[in-house]
């Protein structure tokens, strides 16, 4: 055997040795590389378990695979794909390809928390070798499909640097890169795994190959120099050439060490798994087929082969719970994820379809595969061909292949003409002034360009260049340029769809529950749903589902056009824009979180409420959402209790306005809908009352607390006061808190004055006097607007002060000097617009009440606050006031005497003779007066 072993590639070896000697003056690295490549090929070819090297999105690989499967009829197919994805593959038949197999984990254990959620996708297209293998293995009785690559868990375990976006970004970029389309984001931020990644791993080699191939990017090079020559080659040639390419890239540039380590570990993993399977089932290696990327086929690890060493220890998975499903994919998404040139996957699909037709090879297709035409006649698999025993030793096909001149695909004139006419029509539809003359020019230019690039037949890429040259002018008239139009014409993007049966239970449940809408929600695009709930009460259930979807899904998946959901309201009519088909991935990923959307929503609400970032306001929001979407009193109570805990632990007042708004809304909801208030909300009001009383003095002096927040605190205290007092709170606490507050900020001071007015500590008149004093003092006038904004905010806690605020604002307009007033006006309007949405109507209503309604009435009008002073002057002055009580005492001395007797004092009554104070003084010290008199008389 070893003799034959030596001789298979002996000729090639000799030639390469000579070549190495000629180019590099003697045996050295070059010879090592060249002969090493032959060794790799030789080793892989001799392996008793047949290795079938593939390249991703290569129609040649797919075609060779289909041929080989028909010929060999293997009993076991080993496939390089994450082993945990196996159960899903049969669901592929329910989908329209391309779709991606996804492994998804949100509850992670053993990985850094910031990696969550983990997601791995393996996109599968119809024009791929792996699909052929899967279809063959799943639909042929007695054939086993074994996935042997590392599990999704290991993908992240081996991702040592923590950069799980290890794939290089698209390299086809440059100025010509088309704008990212929506379809390109179909995979989200998942890590892509792909069978047969084959690309040089250092930029210089790729650049060199591109330059000499006279092509623009890698996909084109591959198409030109591998795809086309291999198109019709026999199995041995195909296999040896692919092995050669894999080995070449590997030996020339293995890439960075970390990546090599992962690659080699994967090879060890796969071979270990395969040997274990062979040992367990006792299968004959000759009946098996191992499908892997050409890069892995040329492996040199010790574990390689059926007789390799068993030294590799497969590590255990982490405790992370993995969910699996199928998500829709698209050509653009695959190109974007794996850094392929735009349009290359579409072109591969077109080439595949053409090759299938031309070579009459019957490809495998899963039974009942959706999105494809039914085969015209029953497939041959029923009449299984007898496998051809491969007894003949492998022969050297490489030498011949390497020596033959480049295969020139003959010019397909009809096809090119068709393309030229088609692109001109497409360009015209998109606003270009293109005519038949352009079609002729494109045709001619394509052939000339292909000639310049040493090819007889223009490739789709040459055609694209020609079309751009002849049709593109200085501006792009429409949305798409010519380059993009050619992409679309060459097959365009195709977006896959996951069929109903392959959906997770949650997604199926959603579709079932939305069935009464009678819409084809599986389709892509936006659909309008009209729900007349008053006429068809059963649609209310659909409405519930839609509102939950709106909450859970990305924007645009379910968008209400008419109708809203508020606490205490019932829907009558609603209309929705639904795009569930477009957002299928999001729906499927929801399915990983639970079996029904209610469950997922509940989990999400809980997660928000119990998260470390939760504030009282966010927890109250979840309470509201629970009541609104789930109508669940149980969950709302649980979350409400949680809100109470959070409030008790909170030390800042940042969320006060939001808390006030939400708790008011919830209170009014429960007051109207429930016989008694829930326990938690009573406790919440009690705790809140005490809480905000405690924080008030600090918030007043704290520079970080805004006046709006303080106003909201006071609002809580005043508006919940009735309930709080009935539950056992003490008003003294509030009074003490207010008297302890000594704000320095003018707006907060004004706010506090308003609070004291509300509490009865400050009369309206005093408040007015304070404001007058402010306006009268030239040193404080510039700060007056800030007092005013304090008053405006005071409308929230003390709405009864609205007339006073109108007065203050009017005074400001009347008395403030222009340099102070004018700069402040925009601030006033801005504040009212942003913060005072609820306050402005109150203010305007009050102003409407106070000011005259007609222009004529304005002349005779005096503001009510101006007419009041007379009423005030009628009151006794403070000076006269002092004698008031004394007179009374003198008139009725009995009470006082009795009290004095009781206290043991012997009270005597003095009568103070009313005498002018100044006169007494002059009488006691007359000198000054005399001197003054003399002075005045002297004049």
């Amino acid at each position, binding site marked *: 055997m070893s003799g034959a072993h030596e001789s298979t590639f002996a000729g090639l070896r000799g030639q390469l040795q000579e070549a190495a000697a000629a180019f590099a003056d003697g045996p050295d690295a070059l010879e090592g590389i060249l002969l090493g490549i032959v060794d790799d090929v030789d080793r892989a070819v001799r392996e008793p378990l047949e290795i079938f090297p593939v390249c991703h999105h290569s129609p040649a690989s797919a075609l060779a695979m289909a041929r080989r499967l028909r010929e060999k009829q293997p009993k076991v197919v080993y496939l390089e794909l994450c082993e945990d994805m196996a159960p899903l593959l049969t669901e592929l038949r329910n989908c329209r390809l391309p779709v991606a197999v996804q492994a998804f984990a949100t509850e992670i254990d053993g990985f850094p928390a910031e990696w969550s959620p983990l997601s791995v996708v393996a996109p599968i297209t119809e024009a791929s070798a792996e699909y052929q293998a899967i279809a063959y293995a799943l639909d042929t009785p007695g054939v086993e499909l074994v996935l042997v690559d590392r599990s999704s868990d290991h993908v992240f375990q081996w991702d040592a640097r923590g950069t799980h976006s290890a794939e290089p970004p698209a390299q086809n970029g440059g*100025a010509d890169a088309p704008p990212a389309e929506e379809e390109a984001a179909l995979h989200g931020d998942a890590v892509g795994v792909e069978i047969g990644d084959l690309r040089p791993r250092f930029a210089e080699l790729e650049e060199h190959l591109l330059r000499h191939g006279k092509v623009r990017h890698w996909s084109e090079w591959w198409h030109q120099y591998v795809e086309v020559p291999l198109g019709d080659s026999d199995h041995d040639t195909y296999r040896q050439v692919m092995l050669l390419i894999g080995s070449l890239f590997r030996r020339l540039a293995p890439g960075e060490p970390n990546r090599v380590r992962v690659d080699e570990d994967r090879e060890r993993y796969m071979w270990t798994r395969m040997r274990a399977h062979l040992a367990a089932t006792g299968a004959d290696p000759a009946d098996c087929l191992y499908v892997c990327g050409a890069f892995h086929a040329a492996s040199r690890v010790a574990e390689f082969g059926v007789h390799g060493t068993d030294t590799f220890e497969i590590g255990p998975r982490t405790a992370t719970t993995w969910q699996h499903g199928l998500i829709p994919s698209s050509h653009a998404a695959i190109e974007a994820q794996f850094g392929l040139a735009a349009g290359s996957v579409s072109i591969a699909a077109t080439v595949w379809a053409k090759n299938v037709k031309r070579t009459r090879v019957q490809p495998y297709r899963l039974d009942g595969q959706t999105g494809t035409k039914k085969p015209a006649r029953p497939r041959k698999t029923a009449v299984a061909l007898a496998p051809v025993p491969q007894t003949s030793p492998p022969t050297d096909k490489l030498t011949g292949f390497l020596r033959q001149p480049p295969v020139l695909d003959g010019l397909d004139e009809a096809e090119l003409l068709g393309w030229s006419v088609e692109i001109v029509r497409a360009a015209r539809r998109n606003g270009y002034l293109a005519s038949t003359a352009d079609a002729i020019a494109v045709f001619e230019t394509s052939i*000339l360009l292909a000639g310049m690039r040493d090819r007889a037949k223009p490739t789709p890429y040459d055609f694209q260049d020609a079309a751009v040259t*002849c049709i593109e002018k200085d501006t792009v008239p429409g949305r798409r340029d010519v380059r993009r139009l050619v992409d679309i014409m060459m097959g365009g993007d195709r977006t896959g769809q996951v069929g109903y049966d392959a959906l997770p239970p949650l997604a199926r449940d959603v579709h079932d529950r939305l069935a009464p809408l009678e819409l084809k929600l599986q389709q892509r695009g936006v659909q309008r749903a009209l729900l007349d709930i008053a006429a068809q009460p059963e649609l209310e259930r659909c409405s519930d589902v839609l509102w939950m979807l709106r909450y859970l899904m990305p924007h645009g998946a379910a968008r209400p056009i008419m109708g809203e959901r508020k606490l205490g309201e019932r829907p009558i009519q609603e209309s929705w824009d639904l795009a569930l088909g477009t957002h299928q991935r999001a729906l499927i990923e929801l399915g990983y979180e639970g079996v029904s959307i209610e469950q997922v929503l509940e989990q999400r609400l809980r997660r928000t409420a119990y998260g470390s970032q939760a504030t009282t306001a966010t927890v109250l929001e979840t309470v509201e959402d629970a009541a609104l979407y789930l109508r669940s009193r149980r969950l709302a109570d649980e979350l409400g209790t949680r809100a109470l805990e959070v409030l008790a632990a909170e030390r800042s007042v940042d969320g006060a306005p939001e808390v006030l708004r939400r708790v008011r809304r919830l209170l009014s909801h429960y007051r109207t809908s429930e016989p008694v208030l829930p326990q938690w909300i009573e406790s919440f009001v009690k705790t809140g009352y005490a809480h905000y009383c405690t924080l008030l003095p600090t918030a007043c002096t704290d520079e970080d607390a805004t006046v709006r927040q303080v106003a909201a605190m006071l609002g809580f205290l005043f508006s919940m006061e009735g309930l709080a007092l009935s539950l056992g709170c003490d008003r003294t606490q509030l009074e003490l808190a207010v008297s302890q507050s000594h704000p320095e900020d003018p707006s907060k001071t004004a706010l506090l004055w308003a609070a004291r007015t509300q509490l009865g500590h400050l009369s309206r008149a005093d408040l007015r006097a304070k404001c007058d004093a402010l306006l009268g003092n030239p040193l404080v006038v510039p700060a007056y607007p800030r007092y005013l904004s304090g008053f405006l905010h005071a409308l929230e806690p003390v709405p009864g002060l609205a007339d006073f605020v109108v007065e203050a604002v009017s005074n400001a307009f009347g008395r403030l000097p222009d340099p102070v007033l004018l700069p402040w006006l925009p601030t006033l309007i801005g504040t009212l617009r942003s913060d005072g949405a609820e306050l402005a109507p109150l203010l305007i209503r009050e102003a409407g009440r106070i000011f005259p309604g007609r222009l004529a009435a304005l002349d005779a009008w005096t503001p009510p606050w101006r007419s009041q002073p007379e009423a005030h002057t009628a009151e006794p002055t403070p000076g006269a006031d002092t004698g008031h009580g004394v007179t009374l005492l003198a008139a009725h001395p009995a009470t006082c005497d009795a009290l004095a007797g009781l206290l043991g004092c012997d009270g005597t009554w003095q009568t103070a003779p009313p005498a002018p104070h100044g006169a007494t003084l002059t009488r006691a010290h007359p000198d000054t007066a005399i001197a003054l008199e003399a002075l005045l008389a002297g004049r």
Partner: protein
Amino acid sequence: MSDLLRAPAEIKYAEELDWLESVDDNPKPFSWRLSPKMIRLFILGSERSDGLDREIPQKWFGDRSFVERAIVTLASDRGLLLIGDPGTGKSWLAELLSAAISRNSTLVVQGTAGTTEDHIKYSWNVSMVIAKGQSRESMIPSPIMTAMENGAIGRFEELTRSTSDVQDALISILSEKYISVPELDSDNIVFAKPGFSIIATANSRDRGVNDLSSALKRRFNFVRIPVVTNKKSEAEIVRFRTEELLRRHQIELDVPPNLLDVLLQSFADLRASAAAAGSDDEKLESALSTAEQIGVLEDAVLHSNFFGERALTAHTLASSLVGSLARREPEDLAILNKYLHGVVEPRSKEEGGSWPEFLAGGRDAIATLS
């Protein structure tokens, strides 16, 4: 050394073109002197793998597909319109193409606001008309007409600068490929020989001044030449052109590589800031093209050769940068001032090298100007 200040490409590379013609065995369209592949090789340079006995240097730097598309267009029925920002090498490419195809790159019409139809078709030698009457002898053919008669490439520079009626005179030339001379009774049509085509250039910044009519647009294939933003190839271009200039001026002076880096980096920075600018006032008036860089470097080299210490310094480079880019006062000066203090100053503190000197030079130049 020729006694021409600037020799056209066909004279400058005459020997190289002769040699290429002698080894060229590929099919040649019309009366072309070289085959399309050889033209590409002449413009983009050769490599070892091309199997030639001598090395052909690269003369135009840019994406190879632009050159291929341009050559193929000339081999077809249509004219070629190179469009792009000023200083992207459009005219140089046009010159190289016509030199390689017809060995004559001087059949040029310069489009200006004053260009008339006569400049494109023909005019008359008035004294000869008076003496002998109108005849083919007394006719002065335009460069385009000469190109037609010889089956050569005619060039039209800055097509969009000339008025629409003048542009439209090209329509009949490009489609019928003849010019009729109604003044003559006989022999009154000049037919174009095979090989005739037109390479026009247009400045994309002038768009909207004199828009091309759609009839003319469809007789041209547009090849858009972008501004080179790839640092590596830009460095190559600047080095190539500067060496050429130094040779032309017979100056013995080295451009230190680190100064070249400083120049490239500063242009890259200024381009980035121009891209981020909101209005025209926030960006420099200059297009910041590669040609502009070469201009700055040339200016600095000449300055240091004749007025300096015969060695290029960062100080001189900075002052010539400011001098060339500050065109509007105060907008451009303000931008340069902002650039020097916002970008160069932190960098000179961090990286050192030539940056501190560059900063000082820039400051001095701005101080002089403002």
